């Protein structure tokens, strides 16, 4: 299969800066009076899904939106803390669309599509305008203008924020726009409803099968197009910063129906999270990256000091390893570098805390230099949260932090129109693979989700519907169409299977075991041998799952164990694809570190000759190896260099 990005022509006469505008002009429009004749399914009400559903409804399409929470306002996007990037250059510090584009391609370690990223940087401007218009209370200066900060090591201040609750406020903006369309009867909202499968008819996405999580009822929903905005799959590791119910099933089910899964191995591990405290731990809590602006990272020089009270360890016995190894960036190296180094010192036996999986983030210098009140003003709420969880006072004892899985850059393959290889299936937000390459920059996920939902899909979906109508490719589908019935039956069979295994192990116990395999072998440092081990362990665990799973209660009622079991079943397959992709990519890039591919100084070493492509995998059957398709990446505007933070 040839993978066409469908990006507009870009060359000397056709600059990248006008590509989106040209593309928009060339796309077909749906006449305003005709829009109400089309129906569109939107799965997910996070930033990407809520903004898409609201905007499409405003345009006149009939929308059915779905989320598994009890309200669209509770999607995982709500938890984003730090901020959202936009190339507004309000501070006048030299930012521009081109610089944001450049930083994003470079930050992604040259594994993303230039045309997409350029458009993203352009649309970042509109997002802030739209959000402020909706009444999103972004932070302001005394002069009444919007405030910006620098984030994640960026050299300009381009991050907009709303205290430490940026995701919440942006999501509430999109949710309110959605609420307005629900009131206008343009959106039919299905809460507590989980998409279980995609309905594909004559090669086109025509609907979904859903399960009502309260009654257990399985239902088919038919539409002219399906938009997936179902979020990332970081929870494949069991422990991550994602919300408890975040899962990969919607994307996985689409994959099994023929959609390509791109770069599944690209995972972002965030360096500053609260360490694991015990076996009963259910999730990990992120501590904002901004802490590294003033905190100093260290571990004891000698392993035997690791159990001591840190305040009794003298300066000369401490190893400020980031400052030592990266004198110019110091504690502000990018996420992947900071995470990997924390793992390295812990592997050397110099980790701290009861589990020895932790490093110190120390504010005593900052407190001495700036005074406690300044530190409190900057980070007071984070310190409080830390103390609530760990019962330790970071003003007195250094914080303990450790890396945790945070974000997945991989996802369903989409073209420039955000359409998957299945016509009529569009994928937005964290669920697609599009814009972040092998590593996402801080404050760029919110930007991408909203760019996709507010400003890209309204055009590209219209073009699809208009074109498909001309081609007479969207016939009316009856509810008893054989493909609809067959998909419903398959879902029912899957649910029945999970209910009837009658084994002894809970879904959570399988999930935890899978998480350990993934963290150990498909985590921060990956080796050929480790990945091969994972590829043996995962199918074994999956086989055991289908022999020994226990689910109690009934399928026709609210059943939290069944919900969990269905998601874990899909994680057990997705995990294998991640390991396979990681094994195939024998280079290091961004968040994907192959130990075999490093520079003499131990930094990630790309192999552009061999791996400058998107790895897009096709499902070939439950027991067959998937097939790899490659989309070559070319870079005409950004110069490929080895990243260096020395």
């Amino acid at each position, binding site marked *: 299969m040839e993978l066409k990005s469908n990006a507009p022509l870009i060359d000397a006469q056709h600059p990248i800066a006008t590509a989106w505008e040209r593309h928009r002009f060339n796309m077909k429009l749906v006449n305003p009076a005709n829009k109400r004749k089309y129906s569109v399914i939107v799965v997910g009400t996070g930033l990407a899904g809520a903004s898409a559903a*609201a905007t499409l409804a405003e345009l006149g399409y009939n929308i059915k939106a779905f989320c598994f929470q009890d309200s669209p306002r509770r999607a995982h996007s709500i938890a984003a803390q730090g901020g959202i990037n936009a190339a507004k250059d309000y501070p006048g510090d030299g930012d521009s669309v081109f610089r944001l584009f450049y930083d994003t391609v470079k930050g992604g370690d040259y594994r993303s599509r230039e045309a997409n990223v350029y458009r993203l940087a352009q649309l970042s401007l509109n997002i802030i305008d739209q959000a402020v218009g909706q009444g999103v209370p972004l932070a302001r200066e005394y002069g009444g203008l919007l405030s910006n900060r620098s984030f994640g090591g960026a050299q300009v201040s381009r991050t907009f924020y709303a205290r430490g609750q940026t995701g919440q406020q942006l999501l509430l903006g999109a949710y309110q726009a959605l609420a307005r369309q629900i009131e206008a009867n343009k959106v039919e909202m299905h809460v507590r409803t989980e998409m279980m499968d995609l309905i594909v008819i004559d090669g086109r996405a025509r609907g979904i099968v859903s399960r009502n999580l309260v009654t257990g009822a399985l239902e088919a929903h038919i539409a002219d197009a399906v938009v997936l905005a179902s979020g990332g799959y970081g929870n494949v590791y069991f422990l991550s910063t994602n919300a408890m119910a975040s899962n990969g099933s919607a994307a996985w089910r689409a994959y099994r129906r023929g959609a390509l899964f791109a770069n599944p191995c690209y995972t972002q591990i965030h360096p500053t999270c609260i360490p694991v405290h015990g076996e009963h731990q259910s999730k990990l809590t992120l501590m904002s990256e901004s802490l590294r602006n003033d905190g100093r990272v260290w571990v004891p020089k000698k392993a035997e000091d690791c159990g001591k009270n840190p305040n009794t360890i003298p300066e000369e016995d401490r190893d400020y390893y980031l400052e030592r190894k990266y004198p110019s960036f110091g504690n502000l190296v990018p996420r992947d570098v900071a995470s990997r180094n924390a793992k390295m010192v812990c592997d050397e036996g110099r980790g701290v805390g009861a589990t020895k999986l932790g490093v110190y983030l120390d504010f005593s210098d900052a407190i001495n230099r700036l005074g406690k009140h300044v530190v409190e003003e900057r980070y007071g709420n984070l310190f409080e949260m830390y103390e609530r969880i760990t019962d330790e006072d970071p003003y007195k004892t250094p914080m303990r932090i450790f890396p945790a899985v945070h974000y997945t850059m991989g996802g369903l393959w989409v073209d420039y129109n955000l359409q998957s290889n299945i016509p009529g299936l569009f994928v937005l937000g964290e669920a697609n693979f599009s814009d972040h390459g092998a590593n996402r920059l801080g404050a760029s996920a919110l930007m991408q989700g909203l760019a996709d939902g507010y400003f890209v899909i309204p055009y590209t979906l219209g073009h699809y519907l208009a074109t498909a109508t001309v081609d007479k490719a969207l016939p009316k589908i009856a509810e008893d169409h054989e493909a609809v019935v067959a998909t419903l039956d398959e879902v029912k069979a899957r649910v029945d299977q999970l209910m009837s295994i009658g084994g002894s192990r809970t879904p959570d116990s399988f999930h935890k075991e899978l998480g350990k395999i993934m963290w150990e072998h498909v985590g921060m440092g990956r080796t050929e041998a480790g990945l091969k081990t994972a590829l043996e362990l995962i199918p074994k665990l999956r086989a055991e799952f289908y022999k020994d799973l226990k689910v109690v209660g009934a399928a026709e009622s609210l059943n939290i164990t069944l919900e969990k079991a269905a998601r874990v079943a899909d994680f057990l397959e997705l995990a294998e694809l991640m390991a396979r992709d990681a094994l195939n990519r024998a280079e290091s890039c961004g968040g994907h570190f192959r130990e075999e591919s490093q520079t003499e100084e131990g930094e990630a070493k790309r192999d552009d000759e061999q791996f400058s492509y998107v790895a897009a995998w096709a499902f070939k059957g439950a027991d067959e190896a998937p097939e790899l398709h490659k989309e070559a990446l070319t870079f005409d505007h950004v110069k490929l260099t080895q990243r260096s933070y020395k």
Partner: protein
Amino acid sequence: MKITLHVWRQSDAKDKGHFEKYVHPNVSPDSSFLEMLDEVNEDLLSQNKEPIAFDNDCREGICGACGMVINGAPHGPQRLTTTCQLHMRKFKDGDEVWIEPWRAKAFPVIRDLIVDRGAMDRIIEAGGYISINTQNAQDANALPIPKPVADKAMDAATCIGCGACVAACPNAAAMLFTSAKVSHLGLLPQGQPERARRVGNMVAQMEAEGFGGCTNHGDCAEACPKGIGLEFIARMNRDFFGAMLKSPDHIPARWKRR
């Protein structure tokens, strides 16, 4: 530590419901309240019993999904803390803990500790937004907003929609929730054109959903994990009566009929 739980179990909306007792012999003080319940659930499963159903997702105190009444207090004993952020070190070895769902006419129980909070979404749908379509916003800095105003709007916008205010109120009123959104949007210049209409419609919806009236107990603000203050209720009342006086057209018929 050993903790004895009395948990409300109710199989569906029709079931009458009852308390069941569970003993967790070995709770780690470092675990969160929900992690303790996870362990109880794993134990129940191992005995082929159905686990306790409760809503939760972010476990970071921001999504508003979690919420249960713990020993009579919505979200439990720690101030400004959601259930998911409550840790077991706030309890003592040997404690008895009573866990119930939010109780309010407008929040029917779905199962165990899960209630239907759709009424809160419908209040927002009645007017909790600014009517602006995507694509036609002016430059974000074209409209300076004084920092104190923006900050106050943010204080109100911080509401996570968990429903603890309703659960705490002897009248099961949703005044704090509704007033937080009315105030967030009503404080901002962008929210002015629809200010009167918004408050009218949202208050009417609140009544239609069966939430009670406000008799100034203040329990709602006490229980709010985000510290939303009573000042917003006062603001909403002013807005509402102002709207009625100035432009009675903005007050929906269903309110006027009463």
